[in-house]
């Protein structure tokens, strides 16, 4: 049976900056930062409250993509077109305050939705995430 996603790939523009952002601002734990023989840097972080799901912070320029495709992906990230998905939070409003104070850029403040409380944030590269506390 399928157990879920163990790694979610996130295209980032700069892995050093992403590492800093995801660990010091979003509070993720650094789980790996390895250089592979093929030039790829395997950079993974785990959200503080996650047991088995990690984010793989990938640089398109050092991935399986050819150079023109990597440039297209980088442009899409920079212009804000891509979203890796939904970040689940245990307390959307409190985390919104804390993350805002750290300089995390929100597109939308917490709002009550039929399925929970949701805000929308961007990472340092331009990826947007729904930031949601689901209704119990």
């Amino acid at each position, binding site marked *: 049976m399928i157990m879920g996603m163990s790694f979610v790939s996130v295209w980032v*523009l700069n892995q050093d900056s992403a590492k800093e952002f995801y660990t010091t601002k979003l509070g993720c734990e650094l789980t790996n930062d390895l250089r592979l023989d093929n030039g790829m840097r395997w950079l993974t972080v785990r959200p503080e409250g996650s047991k088995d799901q990690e984010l793989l912070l990938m640089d398109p320029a050092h991935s399986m993509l050819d150079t023109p495709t990597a440039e297209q992906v980088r*442009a899409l990230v920079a212009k*804000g077109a891509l*979203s890796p998905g939904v970040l689940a939070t245990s307390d959307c409003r409190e985390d919104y305050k804390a993350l*805002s*104070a750290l300089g995390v850029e929100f597109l*939308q403040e917490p*709002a009550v939705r*039929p399925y929970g409380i*949701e805000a929308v944030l961007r990472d340092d590269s331009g990826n947007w995430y729904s930031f949601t506390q689901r209704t119990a």
Partner: protein
Amino acid sequence: MSAGQQAPPDLSALRMLRQARDRIDRDYAEPVGIASLAAEAGYSHTHFIRAFHAAYGETPGAYRTRRRVERACELLRSVNLSVTEICHAVGFTSLGSFSARFSELMGQSPSAYRAEAARRGGPAPIPGCFALMWRTGLPAAPGPADGPVPAAPGPADGPVPATGPGPAPGPADGLGQALGRVPAAPAPPQERLPA
């Protein structure tokens, strides 16, 4: 990206454009002029409009209009305010231009839209963020109907491209969200803008 388009601008330029667009998303109800957005992004007025259009397929004025109309749709679905109140809540200054822009994008007047939404009933279980980003995010590839990029639009909204509003409007968002937005609450101070 598409054939025939000029090469995409450099990443730092795209980042500045995205931040300008994010500001429109956040502060859609504020009387923020396109000229000041251009200045914040480090562009001349005309160059900003061209660069924004190249990146997002429509002018910043058109994007702001679409954002305002999209917010108006939510209020029309979920809040018991008059059309005039909603017009002002989302940043339009004239009921006439609100009704005209709304009808162009939605294919019906605000009142008709509200009546139809009431008939359709409750909210669909689709995350509102996806409606937000989908409907106000990247438009379909600009077609010939988009018209030329205006060289020097005035402070009012630029021409609205003739691209349709896309699929049916997103789900009715929560009343709290809608009400929270009515007074055009200023963005939290942490939401910094580029210097």
